[in-house]
């Protein structure tokens, strides 16, 4: 205790470089955004205070609500497909051997492709005139065109995200499954456990941590998605696939509505923060109990 009470004022100097770095690359840019969000300008670099008007306008406009709704729907669908699918792939993978490593390689491939390239791949893949998928689907008599039909655009964008990111969930779950000691499966077999009971009581408890991570990563990434749908649909047809990020860019760089864009950024940021915190708190509630194991 005596050590903790002693004061070393000069010790704070050691923290200074970090403080400066963080200020330079995070705090100051964020404050600029805050600055824009409470002011307006008529040009000439003259700004005046508007208080919370931009926030009110953003929240009152249907546009933000619509984009947020699309965003939530997209993220929900993506999570609902990718988490169970990734988990099932991980459960189906062989535990060791050359087959395990080759599957691993194949799974990792989509993760290594840059976002805009993924967008381009699917933009071409889905095209009705020269795209393999697009023309094949039309050839079997289904009328599919992601540039004209909102549902088709949604299906394309979601298929693309599933293609790109399910591997991440699968690999995370696979690593979690590898941590289950063999003896647990043996005990379960001796106890006469069904396949489902093994999954529910042996595998799932040990996948809990990696599932939380997979869930959070996929939530954050899909909630902030920009490049891929922008390349494929550009937010269309109409505004059908205009998610929050795309809308934000339209507002800030398309219309140069800096005040409103800044307010929207902050609201967007707070939503991500809030949802992540909520997820994390809810999902890790069981872990906070004190561990009384010896």
């Amino acid at each position, binding site marked *: 205790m005596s050590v903790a009470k002693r004061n070393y004022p000069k010790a704070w100097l050691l923290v200074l470089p970090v403080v400066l770095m963080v200020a330079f690359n995070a705090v100051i840019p964020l404050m600029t955004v805050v600055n824009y969000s409470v002011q307006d300008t008529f040009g000439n670099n003259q700004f005046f205070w508007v208080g919370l008007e931009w926030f009110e306008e953003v929240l009152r406009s249907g546009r933000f609500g619509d984009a947020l709704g699309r965003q939530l729907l997209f993220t929900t669908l993506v999570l609902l497909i990718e988490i169970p699918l990734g988990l099932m792939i991980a459960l189906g993978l062989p535990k060791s051997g050359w087959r395990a490593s080759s599957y691993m390689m194949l799974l990792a491939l989509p993760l290594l492709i840059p976002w805009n390239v993924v967008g381009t791949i699917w933009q071409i893949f889905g095209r009705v005139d020269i795209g393999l998928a697009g023309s094949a689907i039309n050839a079997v008599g289904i009328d599919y065109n992601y540039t004209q039909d909102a549902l088709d655009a949604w299906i394309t964008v979601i298929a693309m995200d599933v293609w790109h990111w399910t591997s991440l969930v699968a690999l995370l779950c696979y690593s979690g499954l590898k941590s289950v000691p063999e*003896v*647990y499966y*043996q*005990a379960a*077999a*001796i*106890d006469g456990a069904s396949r489902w*009971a093994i999954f529910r009581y042996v595998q799932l*408890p040990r996948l809990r941590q990696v599932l939380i991570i997979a869930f959070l990563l996929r939530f954050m990434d899909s909630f902030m998605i920009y490049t891929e749908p922008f390349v494929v649909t550009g937010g269309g047809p109409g505004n059908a696939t205009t998610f929050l990020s795309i809308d934000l860019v339209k507002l800030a760089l398309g219309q140069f509505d800096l005040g409103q864009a800044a307010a929207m950024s902050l609201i967007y940021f707070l939503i991500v923060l809030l949802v992540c915190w909520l997820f994390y708190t809810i999902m890790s509630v069981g872990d906070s109990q004190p561990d009384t*194991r010896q």
Partner: protein
Amino acid sequence: MAQIETTGLSHSYQPQPGYPQDFVLKKLDLNLLDGHAYALLGPSGCGKSTLLRIISGLLQPTQGRIHFDGKDVTHLDARQRHVAEVFQFPVVYETMSVFDNLAFPLRNRGLDREAIAERVADVARLLDLTEQLTLKSAALSAGARQLVSLGRGLVRTDVNAILFDEPLTVIDPQEKWHLRTRLKQLHRQFALTMVYVTHDQTEALTFADTVMVMHNGRILQSGSPSELFERPEHTFVGRFIGSPGMNFLRCQFDGNAAIIGDQSIPLQKSYSADIDDHSCELGFRPESCTFSRDGSGIAAQLINVDCTSRRKIAYLDAAGSSICVSLPADQDIPADSHRIRIDPQRALLYSADRLVEESR
């Protein structure tokens, strides 16, 4: 409970075993009687855990058959064998309560709610777990977890045998003693067929009616603890059982006496004639030899002395081998020249590592 029989049981972890050394089990013929407690004793890697896995059905043997009460179960898996196993590291389903852990095997077998509650309550009482029933099993100590995993075997009414794979390894000494007594009690109370794998001779000798000493995939000897101690049939058994193990000295054999150097030890037993003289060894326990005071006996050089509370153990070099002499703690070791006298009544003759049987 059932009688377990194996015939010609061999196992190799290699896909195409060719040589004898590819096999971890070599043509085992066992007959485990219903209601007996057996210990499989041997050093690490001798095949004892493999044998256990084959009995429980977790592993398919490469060759040979296994019968429970005369019924061939070789190709039945662990779910159909009705065998319980307690592993080295306690396995509990950590997200479940102790009650749910104990109920798990019964639920998997589709018993109804009341029957399960009744069985679990019985077993909990038996294992002193009644007060812990509502606890999460993750909160238990290693010993209590091991009790829970034993309990999952005991709740089942259909078990043919309970197998233990070094169950006390991770338990601390005090709890160890407690658990061992509990196991013996259970065995006496219910006449369960138990097979207990261990490399700890104290555990094996105190637990089992019959101890089987394994080495290199073979069972060298099986018998009661005192048989193993008094008459080891193989030099490995002699060295492995006892602390310290049996002494062996190279000797020549002249019909009724063992000759070691210039000393002749009359064995006062008669043996059948053909003994391979080149591989003869005389085996005797550290407890059945003493220092001689009259200048007779085998000359030896004292290396070291260990004192425990009851015994004094002297380590010596004699006739090119190291041997031990165990004395009561109050007896002195002669100061200068050391000669060892072997009790001929309790000395055994070995040829090519095998005990030479006396002829009557």
